[in-house]
């Protein structure tokens, strides 16, 4: 058992301000886009709208025991439907805190519709939804015949893409806790340890340190020297991410590590390449790979400033390494992070160059940079850095050693 890091109680994080800022952004975007109400089921969206602390859980559990938010354009206070009112949600006035809705059930959908009619106070309105159960898909328009049902994601994505200072502080703390835990895990990385033992150490440490959730099954992926030595892929690229098992790790194994935990809903994203050994050594070709990865990161960071586009980022990454694409093409070279561990902006995806050109960086955006350098016969280096777009450039929120590559 050990004490939480001292900066965990830094007075920078103001949860009242956090809640007010987020609510205002959401309602501004609703007004701009003509939505009267948002019914939100996704954990990140519900937390954004209400500040309810929602325990991390399997999708099936959250489907059947959901915490749901209803945001009305003209009401600065959100409605929350939950079975477990937490400390944060208890701040809501009684007439905004409701019994849980059960949208998985047909009878539950009728109750959803009734609540919407009651709380919106109209039968004709534009309703944004982020997720729908099958019962909602087939029942909601029947029960709300005059409502226009639309996708909530343009509203939520637009509101969430630029972070408030309190959101940035939550992300920084999540990342800090994640990195602190990794110091202990990396120290334990000796031959004979299993992937699940690394998860054991990691999760123990993050909860001990004050993380409020784990958001992804930790990845400790064995990296082959040649793509053909690893699992088959449709892309012809190296497979990633692979699910951890109880595989026993051996001296010299190359690992791609990827984890994400939560701090009041905000996600960390940790990525590094490690070598399994009590005294890890890295040969010259792999050191050269790391240097090229570092050059891509430096090129990306040098590009980050307000006004730069996603296309500027992909070009900078390409230019740093010549003609090869220094990231996994079915993923991205950079993605946002916040209440979800991969959210807008997404840069370098298969949505194409035009999509990247339309992404214009603004202060407060978060970019998780995750280039990958691959050489057949050598393997690859993959790591992640988290950058905050500032008024003049960027500030790194990640700060973890590159050992044993540097």
């Amino acid at each position, binding site marked *: 058992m050990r004490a939480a890091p001292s900066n965990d109680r830094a007075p920078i994080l103001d949860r009242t301000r956090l809640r007010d800022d987020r609510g205002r952004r959401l309602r501004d975007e609703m007004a701009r886009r003509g939505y009267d109400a948002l019914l939100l089921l996704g954990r990140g969206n519900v937390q954004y709208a209400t500040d309810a602390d929602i325990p991390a859980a*399997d999708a099936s559990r*959250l489907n059947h025991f959901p915490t749901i938010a209803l945001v009305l354009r003209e009401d600065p206070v959100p409605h929350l439907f939950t079975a477990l009112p937490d*400390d944060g949600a208890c701040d809501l006035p009684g007439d905004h805190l409701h019994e849980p809705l059960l949208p998985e059930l047909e009878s539950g959908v009728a109750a959803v519709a009734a609540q919407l009619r009651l709380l919106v106070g109209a039968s004709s309105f534009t309703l944004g939804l982020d997720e729908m159960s099958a019962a909602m898909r087939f029942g909601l328009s029947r029960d709300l015949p005059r409502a226009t049902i639309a996708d909530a994601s343009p509203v939520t994505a637009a509101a969430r893409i630029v972070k408030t200072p309190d959101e940035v502080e939550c992300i920084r703390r999540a990342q800090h806790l994640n990195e602190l835990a990794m110091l202990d895990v990396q120290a334990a990385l000796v031959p004979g340890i299993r992937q699940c033992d690394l998860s054991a150490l990691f999760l123990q440490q993050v*909860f001990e340190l004050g993380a409020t959730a784990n958001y992804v099954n930790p990845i400790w992926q064995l990296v082959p020297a040649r793509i053909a030595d690893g699992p088959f892929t449709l892309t012809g690229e190296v497979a990633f991410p692979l699910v951890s098992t109880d595989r026993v790790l051996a001296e010299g194994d190359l690992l791609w590590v990827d984890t994400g935990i939560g701090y009041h809903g905000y996600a960390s994203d940790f990525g590094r390449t490690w070598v399994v050994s009590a005294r890890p050594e890295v040969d010259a070709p792999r050191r050269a790979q790391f240097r090229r990865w570092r050059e891509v990161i430096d090129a990306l960071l040098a590009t980050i400033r307000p006004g730069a586009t996603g296309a500027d980022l992909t070009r900078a990454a390409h230019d740093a390494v010549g003609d090869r694409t220094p990231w996994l093409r079915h993923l991205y070279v950079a993605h946002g992070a916040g209440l979800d561990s991969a959210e807008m902006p997404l840069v370098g995806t298969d949505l194409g160059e035009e999509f990247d050109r339309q992404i214009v960086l603004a202060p407060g955006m978060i970019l998780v940079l995750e280039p990958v350098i691959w050489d057949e016969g050598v393997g690859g280096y993959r790591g992640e850095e988290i950058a905050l777009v500032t008024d003049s450039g960027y500030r790194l929120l990640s700060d973890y050693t590159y050992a044993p590559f540097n």
Partner: protein
Amino acid sequence: MRRSTDATTTAAGVDLERMRRERFARAFGEMERREVDALVLGRAANARYVSDARRLWVAGTRPFAPGCVVLRATGQVYLLSATDDGIPAEIPRANLYCTTWNPEKLMHALRRIPGLAEARRVGIDAATPLMNDLLPSVVPRAELVNGEALMLAARRVKTRDEIACLRSAIAITEAALDEVAAIVRPGCPERHLAGVFHEAICRRGATIAATDGIFCATPRTARGGAAPTDETTETWRGTPPPLRGVASDRVLEPGDLVVLSAGVLHLGYEGDATRTCACPPRGSSGDDLHGHGPAIEALHHEWQRTMDALVAECRAGRSAADLRRAYERSGAPPPVLPLAYGVGLGVEPPIVGAGGEKAHEAAQVLEPDMVLSLQVYAWRENVGGYLGTIVVRITERDADVLTASPVRWDAGSSGANSAFLDS
């Protein structure tokens, strides 16, 4: 050199190949019965049920995306996956379509699945407004129907291998919770309990927690310590204050009743268990219950009586509504947690006591080999709360209890708390 300890990929008494075959046959049978030509599935549990693909677990729900397609005409399963890692050999590489951010590319991949475009009835298990717009271009002639209801009907009754998976998952959770119970003592922060739990399940090969769990000292008064006024005491006595679902920095104090409630997913199957222990006095071996002995014993007795009433209803032919009525007849206050829910590949219906779902409860009739997680929370002013979970398999005549030690942990492994909560 040994490359794996088989802890994550197998479980005692499970024939994985047979489990896959039997599960698929049930889903396929429901497709035939309902004349559904194709299923387009987005939910991880449904995709796993028909394919047994082991995919990366991430917490929480995701907006619907077509991650798995099943065709009745050919009996083929198609999966959204860039790799064949974790995908059973029965599913050929030709049946994989690549992960993409681009909805148009995804629709294009679906249009190339042989026979899907001709389907007349297509089940979907969830939706988004975007997919409502896009999917008709893939199945232009199809009527879309509720595929979640179809899948839940298939998943409702468990095969012998599924039950073995559930037993294995429960055993992992119970063993891990017993380790946590052994360290409950004054000065221990709640988050330390959560950390020890996660370490213990991963060491046993279950790296996915079904929830981050409840590791909290239960409140002893209805409003977090403030003494209730005389006027409201009666009401509050009947309504337990909520349990906190996120472990905090709060440090355990002597006399706290501490709820340890969690679950793992092992081979996809959910194993739930709960321990409630009394935090012993400082420096004590735990034999002295800090003057709360009789009160705690009475609380536990209340819990036992209510739980017995629930378990007595767990047999074929009874309905979920019967469970709720049994709970109400026991005189317990309205539940703060669901009384019962189905478990299999995660949580599934029937859901009992989580809101106004009476119509659902009456329609949910128990059948042999359904598995239910029952949880009762008893609470008393100035004492605290006792939460206990029992997982049962329904049989023709009674409930087969899958939980090894539903009431108390084994005295040999419980260290400081060995004297607690005998009824």
